[in-house]
């Protein structure tokens, strides 16, 4: 799996030395970094973990600024990402974990009207081990967050998702949604999911849902009735299951190469 296609497709440039993301698409090239998106700026960022490494990345998104992040794990990495969002800032994020990895995302919504939106998936096969934690902290009022993470574990893979939505006292009118949907394939695969809520304010709209399920038998039957083999039907369904995150990639230009990389990974299931 090569990730160069993503960089080319997005015409991404390396990070500036001062860490200020003022516009365009950047690609992070490893190492611990502190980055900022200045007030009102709009930028995109590719975080590609294609080799085994440890990294800590901190990003501050200024007032009214917008950041789109695509993060991809194709090699065992241990990564910490800490986002701090100022008033009325927006962060859209697509995260795909296609290998063993330890991932910890912390999102601090520190000023009002900040918005965070994550679509993600992990697809694990063989003896992959992935542990993915996402903490979304609503520290101010009127912020919203949405995270949808799909998980597929096959072979003897083990995927763990831990989500926490924290709503501080006085973070009123928080609107938060957290979804974890998972499929296990085969006898030795294992998925653990723990979507948690910790709420200290009363005027909030918080919901979470988690499912672990098998592939929908009715749908398989339906597809077979139209002439697909069982294998085709299953693959199609899993593609559809994780496809959302790819199709609505935060950085639109990389959607296609991303889809190819995911399809390649799905072949190993």
């Amino acid at each position, binding site marked *: 799996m090569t990730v160069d296609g993503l960089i080319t497709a997005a015409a991404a440039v390396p990070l500036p030395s001062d860490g200020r993301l003022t516009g365009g698409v950047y690609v992070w090239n490893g190492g611990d970094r502190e980055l900022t998106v200045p007030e009102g700026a709009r930028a995109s960022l590719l975080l590609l973990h294609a080799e085994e490494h440890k990294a800590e990345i901190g990003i501050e998104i200024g007032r009214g600024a917008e950041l789109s992040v695509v993060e991809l794990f194709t090699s065992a990495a241990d990564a910490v990402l800490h986002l701090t969002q100022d008033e009325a800032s927006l962060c859209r994020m697509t995260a795909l974990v296609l290998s063993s990895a330890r991932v910890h995302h912390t999102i601090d919504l520190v000023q009002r009207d900040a918005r965070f939106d994550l679509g993600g998936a992990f697809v694990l096969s063989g003896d992959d081990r992935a542990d993915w934690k996402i903490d979304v902290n609503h520290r101010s009022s009127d912020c919203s967050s949405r995270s949808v993470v799909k998980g597929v574990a096959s072979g003897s893979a083990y995927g763990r998702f831990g989500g926490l939505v924290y709503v501080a006292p006085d973070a009123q009118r928080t609107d938060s949604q957290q979804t974890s949907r998972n499929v*296990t394939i085969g006898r030795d695969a294992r998925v653990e999911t723990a979507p948690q809520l910790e709420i200290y304010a009363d005027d909030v709209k918080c*919901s979470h849902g*988690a499912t672990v399920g098998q592939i929908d038998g009715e749908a398989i039957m339906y597809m077979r009735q139209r002439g697909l083999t069982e294998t085709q039907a299953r693959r199609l369904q899993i593609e559809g299951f994780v496809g959302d995150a790819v199709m609505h990639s935060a950085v639109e230009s990389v959607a296609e190469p991303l889809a190819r990389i995911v399809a390649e990974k799905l072949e190993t299931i």
Partner: protein
Amino acid sequence: MANDTKNIIEEIESGEYKYGFSSKIETETIARGLSEEVVRLISQKKGEPEWLLESRLKAYRHWLKMPLPQWAHLDIPDIDFQDIIYYAAPKTRKKLASMDEVDPELKRTFDKLGIPLEEQMALSGVAVDAVMDSVSVKTTFRETLAEKGIIFCSISEAVKEYPELVRKYLGSVVPYTDNFYAALNAAVFSDGSFCYIPKGVRCPMELSTYFRINAEGTGQFERTLIVADEGSYVSYLEGCTAPRRDENQLHAAVVEIVVERDAEVKYSTVQNWYPGDKEGRGGIYNFVTKRGLCRENARLSWTQVETGSAITWKYPSCVLLGDNSSGEFYSVAMTNNFQQADTGTKMIHLGRNTRSRIVSKGISAGRSQNAYRGLVKVSRNADNARNYSQCDSLLIGDKCGAHTFPVIDCHNPSAVLEHEATTSKISEDQLFYCNQRGLSTEEAVGLIVNGYAREVLSKLPMEFAVEAQKLLSISLEGSVG
């Protein structure tokens, strides 16, 4: 208001009553603290067989090595386990001569709960025997059960009368190694209930601890063992809706349920221990381990309404060992003032085609913290396991907390597991609408809360459900401006 009531009960119960004192009754206690000597002494005083003493000692030795559990979302003050008296012989209830001596505030609460007069007397310590032949009630009750071969007695009695049953099942579902408080309980348990339903017998009535002989004075380390033999059925009620005050601050009970093949057990709890006062002083620490083991085709259903205690730490669980067995957990947990609750369930799917269902309704008011904690685990061989969990939180006021900590751990590809959670508050619109139709805010809140909890309340036996509804309203008094 409800708390004042409880203070009054405290006064009633703590003051040594000058008329009813009987010198014949043992009031003997042993020194504070816990040691092997104390464990031996407890066993000796209860005249227990050697095997039980051995098992107590094993538990004690294991307990010494165990750390205090810290993972719950609770702020637990340091407990000095050497400052507790681990054995006190059953005390006399202070008898009042008539209902007139009962505090009017307490009577008002009873009336609101709709508790029958006789029961009110029993609960507030009026010498019931004088006004109602409770002994005969109990006798009739026992005779009916005996006809069917059902055993329902105190665990101490069971150790003497049915040692082989107790020995076979005690500690089989909750071993002393399970957790800190279960180990402590296994070492020092005072008394509790034992219930055995023979093969194929359908227990003709709800078994209630209230009617059990020797139900009083079971103390702070209660132990309950229920065995439903193959194809039997029983519905068991624990606690009662009336406020209950106990001078023991720490309670660490263990409930074990064995549901044999094709049997069904419904276990309902209404917990209304003293929750502490409005400033968060006092109140019971309730650390309970409840678990049931289901064999093939067995069904176990837990229903709980938790409104009392300063701290609640409790996870009634189902081990679905047998194929086609099923477990249910229905819970309403309400916290007010400075109460803290961390409660939920564990559904452990081991057998094939096992089903579980979780419905949890948390209600937080005042400055309380209320957490749902749950585990749904599907093991490798548990083909076609199904779980549905619904965990809702209702916040009343902006100083309280509502938390949800579910874990789903799935090790089998044929499982279908679903968890949903929502958080809501009582809206101004709802209150305005009710007010406009003539309801007071308090009535409106009671109504809305009961509607919110209805799915769970409807699982309670009828008479209990009505009382529980009123209890929810009463526990909320003073929580809305």
